[in-house]
């Protein structure tokens, strides 16, 4: 399953970073605390959050996440969009809550198991 599959199966809106739609999705992670994401999310995972500022892209880029889904129609600012486009990291938007987005992902077979913690 790749990011484009996630987009079509959950009916998400691609806000930016369309270059990365062919990235493979290996699992998922949900949190609004950046340090928790840094510690818990693994490369290739989908990250569901309510945060929408440029550091979201930095975190996703550093971890090599597949994409970011921003829930509840929260819109990223221009700086975030520009950075995501530059890095080719898709930012997807959903009108649903984080809970519902995660449920949808699980329904598509995206696993929440975090394979590797920092150590």
């Amino acid at each position, binding site marked *: 399953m790749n990011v484009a599959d996630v*987009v079509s199966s959950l009916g998400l809106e691609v806000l930016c970073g369309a270059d990365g739609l062919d990235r493979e999705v290996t699992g998922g992670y949900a949190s609004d605390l950046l340090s928790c994401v*840094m510690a818990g999310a693994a490369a290739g995972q989908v990250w569901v959050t309510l945060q929408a500022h440029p550091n979201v*892209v930095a975190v996703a880029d550093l*971890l090599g996440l597949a994409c970011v889904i921003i829930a509840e129609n929260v819109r990223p600012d221009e700086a975030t969009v520009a950075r995501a486009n530059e890095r080719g990291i898709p930012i997807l938007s959903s009108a649903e809550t984080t809970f519902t987005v995660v449920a949808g992902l699980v329904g598509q077979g995206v696993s929440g198991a975090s394979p590797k913690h920092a150590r």
Partner: protein
Amino acid sequence: MGETQEAPVRKQPLIERAELTKVQELVYELRVEQVMTRDVITCTPDQTMSDLKEVLRLNRISGVPIVDQGQMVGMISVESLIKALEQGEADHLIGEKMTRRYQSVRADDTLAGAVALFARFKYGRFPVVDADGNLVGILTQGDIVRGLLRQLETLWHSEEIRRYRASHIFEDIESEQTTLILRYHVKAQDFVHGGEASSKVKRALERLGAHPQFLRRVSVATYEAETNIMIHSHGGEIIVEAQPNAIKVVAVDTGPGIEDVEQALLAGYSTAPDWIRELGFGAGMGLANIRSCTDRMQLTSVMGEGTRLEMVFDLTVGSGE
């Protein structure tokens, strides 16, 4: 040709759109002369349609420019040949059947221009001419695709070379101890550029050939350190020392300093104000994350002067790092 109805505009699938982006850049960079076929097979006006049939068949092509004494005078395609054969005009001269008002493309046009011509005229090929109108090549859609693929491969290859060169720096340069020092400034409260130093560190180490697991440890710790400088200090620097057997990352700032270093190291302890917590920072996990990612770390701070965080990541032989 030419009568074909244009297909109704279809929404491009997402995937196709994503893959096209780099190619779209390239069609504006590459010139027709970089991808065209230079050895052009031509015919002359005094050859017969039967001669043309042999030329097309032997070369497996579907059209040729017609050249008379070095000057291009027309184009002829397999369509005209079929029509002539149907009407039993195999012995007619090419000069009678060729198209004199042909569409050509300039050698110094961009591929984008050529792609537009293909879309507009639906011809299978265009003769390529120089500024003086001389025939210098021929361009098919296949030439364009091959040219783009070649260019994409070259781009990929040059990144490979950069990576190779960087990863051999420690072998190529002889000294008692080779250390590569990378320095990045981090501004206070600059949330827009937050994480950029860490991204650059990651990319640099990637080029030096670091293993993904190792990269992750350095990236996470460096990001947390960068974020701490951004949120809590008046600004500072990230200094990376790359050695053959270890990477040392030092994060220094110019104050205000940490009052109780022991307390700061406790997981969950944070002094971040509410507005920063709302951005998802300040969970009190930064230093705990750094500790779990580093092989050794040392935090020293002097109130009013600044804080220095030293992080060491060992490149152990045999661990695949």
